[in-house]
């Protein structure tokens, strides 16, 4: 089945970063424009992507790219 409708991919804002969590899982983190998203909770969100899951975090600090790996892991558990 192909995707119905016409949702556009969320535009990336700035560069993404990567980290490896305590279980050895490789994650990429990107900031995305969420302006037109259904149910948006703000202008931007973070998308955490691993080989097994992708999830969204709405509350994050402006300087999230400078966080340590432990802090990024903690942030990835936010909503």
């Amino acid at each position, binding site marked *: *089945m192909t*995707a*119905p*409708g016409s*949702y*556009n*991919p*969320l535009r990336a804002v700035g560069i993404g970063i990567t980290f490896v969590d305590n279980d050895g899982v490789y994650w990429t983190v990107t900031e*995305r424009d969420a302006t037109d*998203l*259904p*149910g*948006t909770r703000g202008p931007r969100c973070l*998308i955490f*992507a691993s080989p*097994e*899951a*992708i*999830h*969204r975090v709405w509350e994050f600090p402006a300087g999230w790219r400078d966080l340590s790996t432990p802090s990024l*892991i*903690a942030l990835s*558990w936010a*909503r």
Partner: protein
Amino acid sequence: MTSKLPSTRTPVLVVDDNPAESGVTIATLGTAGYTAVAESEGDAALRRARRSLTRLLVSELYIPCAEGTCIVAVLKGERARLPRLQVVVHSRHTSELDAEWALAAGCDAFVPKGASAGVLVREIRRLDGFAA
């Protein structure tokens, strides 16, 4: 770490047009103490979500309804009515395009079917307010 008794865990609405796969999802959630009800059709799922003020939804990706091409986008667009709704898209459609489409529809997490059961449970627990 936050702790909750299993009986206090948020009920989950599972929406899947494949009953066998829906059953697997419900069983997986059950291992983590979550109770779930299932719908297989979009309009019925919308009615149930609105009636019960659903907070946790696990849905296949391309479930159409009379109000749109995807119930995830329809329900996520109802923040006034369903302000606490959290959605995991759990799908057999696993391409990068599918994942991007799910994110653009407003889901809070995307877990492809075929991922280990623990991944789905972890995402549900995160969205239910559990710490790591």
